[in-house]
């Protein structure tokens, strides 16, 4: 079923929308959640919550990119769940490493308000990159793919990926520093 049709089902308040969403994007959303949570049950619940949240969001929302729309919801839900879970214990794996890495190149989130131009600047920075480095950066810090996953996908050694990411983080930090951010 085409995205437009799925959206129409949401707007028609037809519960088949959830079935079709799960059929088309269940796997994808599950992988988004798994990358963050590393727990199948938690991931499954996030995916289910994604459909609920989508049901509540459409209407009035009419996303132009349904795939990204679902991914974004799943990601946010997974972040919430991750936070709740880490009140008790740390996962201590590659994902946390990624979080630390990201902190090296972004300003303090508390200093970034809703109307801050940072998101647009991030887009500008990403636009300035070649496709592969851009996919590496987004893959690592948006989708939370592991270095090994990225290496396998893009035909690189894990070390090459790590070095590339390090340079990208430095570039991003410089880019934002030049534009007045304190990192």
């Amino acid at each position, binding site marked *: 079923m*085409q995205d437009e049709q799925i959206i129409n089902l949401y707007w028609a308040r037809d519960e088949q929308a959830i*079935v079709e969403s*799960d*059929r*088309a*994007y*269940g*796997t*994808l*959303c*599950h*992988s988004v959640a*798994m990358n963050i949570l590393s727990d*199948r049950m938690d991931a499954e619940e996030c*995916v289910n919550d994604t459909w609920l949240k989508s049901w509540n969001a459409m209407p009035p929302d009419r996303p*132009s*990119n349904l*795939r*990204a*729309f679902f*991914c*974004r919801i799943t*990601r*946010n839900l997974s*972040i919430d769940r*991750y*936070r709740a879970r*880490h009140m008790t214990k740390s996962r201590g794996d590659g994902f*946390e490493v*990624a*979080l*630390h890495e*990201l*902190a090296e190149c*972004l300003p303090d*989130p*508390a200093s*970034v308000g809703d109307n801050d131009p*940072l*998101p647009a600047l*991030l*887009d500008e920075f*990403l636009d300035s990159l070649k*496709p592969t480095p*851009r*996919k*590496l950066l*987004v*893959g690592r*810090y*948006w*989708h*939370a*793919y592991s270095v090994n*996953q*990225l290496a*396998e*996908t893009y035909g690189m050694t894990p070390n090459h990926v790590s070095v590339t990411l390090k340079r990208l983080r430095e570039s991003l930090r410089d880019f934002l520093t030049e534009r007045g951010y304190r990192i």
Partner: protein
Amino acid sequence: MKEMAYFELFGRISDRFVTEALIPAVVPVPAPQKGFKQTPLGKFLTGPAFIATVSVLAAAAVAIAIGFGLAGRDDTPNAPDGSAFESGLTDSREDSLDTEHMEGDATREESDSETENSTERTDDSGEHPYIARKDYNGQGFGIIYGKNLMGEGFSYLPEDMVFAGATALNADLYERIQMTEDYLGVSIGLWEQEDEEALMHNVGLMSGASENDNYLIVASGQSMSRLGSFELFLTPWESLEAINTKADYWDTALMTTHTQGGHSYIAYSSFIPPNAYAIAYNKSLYATAPTQRDLYDLVESGDWTVETLMAVLGETAPINGRLSTHDNASVSAYLSAMGFSVLGTVETDTGYTQSFNIADRQESMKPLFLRAMELISSDFVLRESLENGSETPFIEQGEVLMDTRLTRELAYRAYGKSFGVLPLPKYDKAQSEYLSVHANAYMGLWCGEENRQMCGEVAELLAYFSRNSHEDYNRAVMGVYGKDDSGVQRDLAMLRIIHDTTHDMGMSYVSQWIVPGLREGRSESTSSETSMIRSALRTARKATGW
């Protein structure tokens, strides 16, 4: 955890970057066994005695259906006496393969050794050993295929599974068709058949009895190593000189099997791994059932029998209180196991009716057949087929078990739920191995007097270009199964059992006819494949006048 806020902050980038960087979720798992073991039953089913019997029955069916008298053909026995027919069949095979077709063709002989070598290569220059590139000036050529049998089972997989090889089967076949088009300068049109089994059966039967010159070559499934998921069998193939039957991408054994009196009128349906009948089960739903049985353990210990299945169904019924549904599932699965539902009565809009129930032709399948009859005559009601939409409650967590074909099973896995796969149960513990049959695949290449040379070349090139495609099947299975990171190895073990015990039922079809009712390509989907089909269809129709 403060760092998570940075992750959240980075989440505010635009959607286009998000989708661009997506990679599918595939967990690497070891490759399944290549090739498919032929079990003793399989050997019997492809052996001369069985083949002779089936051939006679098929010929008789043709005669009855079409009204032709077989007695008038000097190569056909008058009575279905398998042993008496066997020797004659063997002789005629030798005549056909060794004398009439292969030997005496100097060009072919020269190329044989070359071909044998070339099939060892994984990917060469793309040049066929003896067919030179040529230009038929865009002349049309038609191929028909069943709706659900050309990898269609994969077509509704999510886009992000593409990397996992889920659409590799279709893509690979289309690629080879395009390579053939380029190689010969022809324009190949594809016709999709609405009812892949019923109509195609009659394509074979009716055309085989015809005496006119418009031969339809029917291709059927064998393994993934040849024409994608299809094996070419020709009617009468020996008249198509371009085909190199000695090359190892042709299955000589199957062709000889279907040769009578020097002519192979029969298109063979052998097993096609992804479409073997099996049982899917919803792992997560099953986990909530008040039963402690590990279904995979039952299979591996050889205890997965009909009685066990029925007991398990009873134990899982409290999940949703729909015991009858589960029971029906088992009945349907069991009918599939012995080939009944696969081979039910066929009716076409030509008014032709023919029963294809051949389970009663095989001693080994009789217990299954009888058991199925018991079930039919009991209180159970057959559930509707998968194609009628009864998979929906299964997918939506309403049913634990579901009879299915492996193509469907692969698709279930792509839905993001956790589905396992089981072989069809044994009749009882005395049954030595699990048994399944493959869902039949057919493909027809139109071949008239005016395009006989081209027809042979197209067939040969398609087979030649397909010789390394086995990996595509592996990729599809691996990709879809590999996405589940729990129990993958056990799933694969079940798949191997199914593959190793899946048999062709020995159905034989004679071909040389084109029946009405072929759909003129897909009209609803807007996928690129569809566009290609429709485009090719228009071209081919214009060129051939079909």
